[in-house]
């Protein structure tokens, strides 16, 4: 390391947040867009009798266009929810609730987010048929397996866009093609992809897409459902009430949160290309520094067909918990944040064929919009030093 690098490292502010797949820091511009609705424009969008209500409703309309714009959808195809977990539950249970009697089969993938898998298991417990497809060692879905699994009894296929643990990007266009050929409906959980990689619902042939606010520098507690306007009456609401969101999702919408999701979407759309390049460069720098010092590191998941803000990396022979204890000023994850309450190795790593030892030696490092080169250098130095102090890699 050069003297100049050392100086930069010394100046970096810790702890360094490197867990962008768990959640992202809110962008100041997003907060600014939310403030009017937290302060003066506090109306209930359902209040049709006065200006506070109209103003709040207008906020929803604007955000609907902003969200739709990012995925080439129409504004009326966007429905606001409390987050991607709710949306995933809504689509999986809701589609099976309507179509399950005619087409009892649901197909999904072993590496899906816990909420997709749990909702799918809920459906199986209701008596529907569930097929969970395996993935290859690189984390990608085998399209031939998909071909075989989807039949004319299949109501819904749910495949995520970008994996939350290993970052791999599934071939959504090819998947959409196969699913529709077989006459099934296609849902993609895009919580980790929306706002980060280009998504066009027409190219993907998505019938439903799940969207999250807090993964794209927006607020927690808000997400969206995209439902193709060609799919009428295909979804049973998860909850009922005042009939908001065209009757699909009752409950007073939160204009501040929704405006935040809208603003985050616009920023993502404008800056996506430049940001992806910047993040790709920083990730290349991190990998270069790490592999230079520790050539026996291995990457979990496909090396290039992945969101570059994610690195799931195995330190062979090193206990992940010990490693974490030695890098306390780096906020990284040893598994999916959502799975941290559970013990045992990550089911995603298990699904790509990692044994328990590999899984226990792996870290998830997530970088994003606010990550700097100095932070990358600092993190690399810390990780290398901690590994060395723990006796080095034992491949």
């Amino acid at each position: 390391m050069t003297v100049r690098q050392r100086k930069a490292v010394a100046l970096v502010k810790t702890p360094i947040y490197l867990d962008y797949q768990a959640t992202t820091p809110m962008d100041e511009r997003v907060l600014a867009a939310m403030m009017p609705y937290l302060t003066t424009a506090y109306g209930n969008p359902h209040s049709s009798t006065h200006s506070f209500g109209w103003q709040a409703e207008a906020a929803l309309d604007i955000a609907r266009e902003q969200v739709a714009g990012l995925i080439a959808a129409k504004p009326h195809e966007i429905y606001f929810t409390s987050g991607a977990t709710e949306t995933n539950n809504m689509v999986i249970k809701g589609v099976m609730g309507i179509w399950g009697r005619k087409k009892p089969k649901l197909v999904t993938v072993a590496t899906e987010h816990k909420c997709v898998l749990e909702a799918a298991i809920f459906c199986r417990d209701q008596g529907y048929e569930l097929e969970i497809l395996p993935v290859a060692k690189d984390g990608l879905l085998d399209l031939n397996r998909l071909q075989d699994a989807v039949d004319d009894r299949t109501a819904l296929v749910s495949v995520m866009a970008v994996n939350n643990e290993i970052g791999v990007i599934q071939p959504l266009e090819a998947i959409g093609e196969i699913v529709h050929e077989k006459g099934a409906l296609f849902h993609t959980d895009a919580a980790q992809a929306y706002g980060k990689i280009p998504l066009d619902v027409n190219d993907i042939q998505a019938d439903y897409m799940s969207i999250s606010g807090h993964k794209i520098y927006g607020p927690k507690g808000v997400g969206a459902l995209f439902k193709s306007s060609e799919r009428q009456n295909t979804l049973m609401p998860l909850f009922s009430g005042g009939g908001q969101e065209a009757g699909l999702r009752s409950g007073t919408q939160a204009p501040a949160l929704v405006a935040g999701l809208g603003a985050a979407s616009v920023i993502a759309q404008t800056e996506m290309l430049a940001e992806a390049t910047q993040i790709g460069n920083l990730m290349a720098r991190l990998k270069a520094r790490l592999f230079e010092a520790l050539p026996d590191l291995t990457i979990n998941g496909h090396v290039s067909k992945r969101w570059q803000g994610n690195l799931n990396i195995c330190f062979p022979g090193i206990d992940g918990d010990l490693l974490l204890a030695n890098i306390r000023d780096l906020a990284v994850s040893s598994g999916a944040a959502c799975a941290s309450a559970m013990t045992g190795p990550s089911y995603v790593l298990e699904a790509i064929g990692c044994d328990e030892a590999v899984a226990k030696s792996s870290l998830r490092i997530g970088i994003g919009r606010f990550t700097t080169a100095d932070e990358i250098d600092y993190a690399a130095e810390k990780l290398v030093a901690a590994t060395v102090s723990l006796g080095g890699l034992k491949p």
Partner: protein
Amino acid sequence: MSANMKTPIYLDYNATSPIRPSVIDAVTSAMQSVGNPSSVHGAGRSARSAVEQARAKIAAMVNARPRDVMFCSGGTEASNAALYGAQASSLIISAIEHECVQAAADASDLPVFRAPVAESGVILLNELEDLLCKAPSGALVSVMAANNETGAIQPIAQIAEIARKHGALFHCDAVQAAGRIPLDIGALGTNYLTLSSHKIGGPQGVGAIVLSPTAPLKPLIVGGGQELGRRSGTENVAGIVGFGEAAMEAMAAIPDMARLALLRDRLEGQMRAHAPTAVIIGAAAERLANTSCIAIPGLKGETQVMHFDLAGICISSGSACSSGKVKVSHVLSAMGYSEHIAASSIRVSFGYQTEKSDVDAFFEAWKSLYDRKAAQGGGFG
């Protein structure tokens, strides 16, 4: 709202409340910290700690154990989650429940029984008991603590007692009552209590169910296992923090309800004196101090709200959730009011920012409309 326009007078607190200034600070500061409460690193742990502090505040508001507070996206989700999650054999709801309870009950595949109310808007306990005798065992009773349209307070402790006697679980939608009357889930005997943040001066998009220690709850939303497995999904940390702050403020401000009661009673007196045919809906019941539902027979509710809007005063005709549709309030129908009266009703609801001058302005605006219509031979009555 342009700068040269007078700020409208907001008298629609039962639809939503302006966020309290201290809550705005708490929410914006929470939004500036990163961290998923499920993450084990420092950022995650401070998010977790913020959520748990807020949970203790919500628990304190209703004298519950913090672990019995389950956060979710709002009152509608909470009530749906309770109705489905209790896994009851049938649902017995009052005829004046909020749309979310009515619709959730109807959307379930369970038998639904509706308990009628008296003309005062208070549930008829003997009728409720009859239904409990008729319904299959293992029912869930759902009755709101206070009605959103009339403010009528229901005899919650008695309802809980009757439900318990018949082996039924009891859900109470306390969205409108919270922060306006003291609530103690132990004394009330509820198994599920629905709370909403934005009705008590907190942000929209967050609410809670408060469970009794033994109440079962099958989750409506599954996944990462947050909220002790009862409600999955990354917690709305800033929203929850704001909800907690609002709960503290609202609790401390309950004595202020006496001030609002004086304003409300004075207003109703003035209106009745000016318009002898005026009907104060639910006047015979014990009501929330902030709510007034008034019908001037013959003077259409929509005409009134339009007039008030032009006068810069925000009120509602019926509940916010039914005002989008041209539909007579199910609450007023259940109380036995004719369509004629129901269609002539407006709802005025006060809150922490309401001053005497606001209420005076409302009365003056109302009087000018009334006098104009009367001069035109309005056909009142």
